[in-house]
């Protein structure tokens, strides 16, 4: 076996691995899209109501916001908003981009990019929640 053949065989294996990266059917992904959308509606409603239980401007003062973050239940609510909307939003973007163009490279590229962006935004938002949750007011 020549070195070119070995390289080609490795490339084929890599391509096959990438093509098998799709773990879910589109119908299952769309169910997840609807479920995350409806769930986000409820948690975002609570998030907005938390801004309206006192005068809007006062609720956005640094001390009040930090107090919200220090509440474990509210921190968990924020984390769930972050995850639900990231999944729903980036999957929505994926659907739009796949409607515009349909080639194998485009579809794989879009899938990989939205997964990376989704993980990136969840990680960045989680960092804020964790640090703000541990912030001392004193």
């Amino acid at each position, binding site marked *: 076996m020549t070195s070119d053949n070995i390289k080609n065989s490795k490339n084929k294996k890599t391509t096959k691995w990438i093509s098998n990266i799709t773990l879910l059917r589109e119908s299952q992904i*769309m169910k997840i899209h*609807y479920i995350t*959308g*409806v769930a986000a*509606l409820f948690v*975002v409603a609570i998030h907005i109501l938390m801004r309206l239980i006192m*005068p*809007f*401007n006062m609720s*956005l003062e*640094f001390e009040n*916001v*930090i107090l919200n*973050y220090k509440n474990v239940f509210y921190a968990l609510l924020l984390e769930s908003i*972050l995850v639900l*909307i*990231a999944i729903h*939003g*980036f999957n*929505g*973007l994926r659907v*739009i981009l796949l*409607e*515009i*163009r349909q080639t194998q490279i485009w579809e794989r590229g879009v899938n990989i990019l939205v997964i990376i962006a989704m993980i990136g*935004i969840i990680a*960045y*938002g989680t*960092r*804020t929640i964790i*640090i*703000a949750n541990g*912030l001392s007011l004193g």
Partner: protein
Amino acid sequence: MFLWRGNIDMTSATSPAKRIDNNNRINREGLRGWLNPLRYGWERVSYWFQRLTGIFLLVYFIGHVYETSSLVSGPDAWAAMLEMTQTIGGHLFLILVIGASTFHTVNGIRLIFTESGQGLGKPGRPDYPYDPTSLNNKQRSGLWIAFILAAVAMLYGANVLFSGGD
């Protein structure tokens, strides 16, 4: 009516099977077709708004996650970031966010019902002028409810924001 006007090469030496020349797909409209709201009536407007509001809200979501990360830099950074939304432009932007999220939510719920087969009506005989039964008053009223609720939410948001937030 769908017309295929691309080339099908039947005499290719490399592939005896049919080879479709994708570069010559002149029936493909791409983004222009996607954005054309005129051809299919209000359902097309709904399709168009659902996607535009979705993209707008995703951009806002990313901006909001970035904006709130200023919390970890202390009260001054938080106040500086918050000042951006305390201008008339900032208020108008937030009102747009309220309208977009309300429309996207209500129309999204309508779409979930539609895609699960609810409110589509029974299939009928295709008589002229061939109005599909699926694009019925239930669907259209759902769309109008989405627009009306978005307008009401925007008015409420404008009232809260422009009254000083008290």
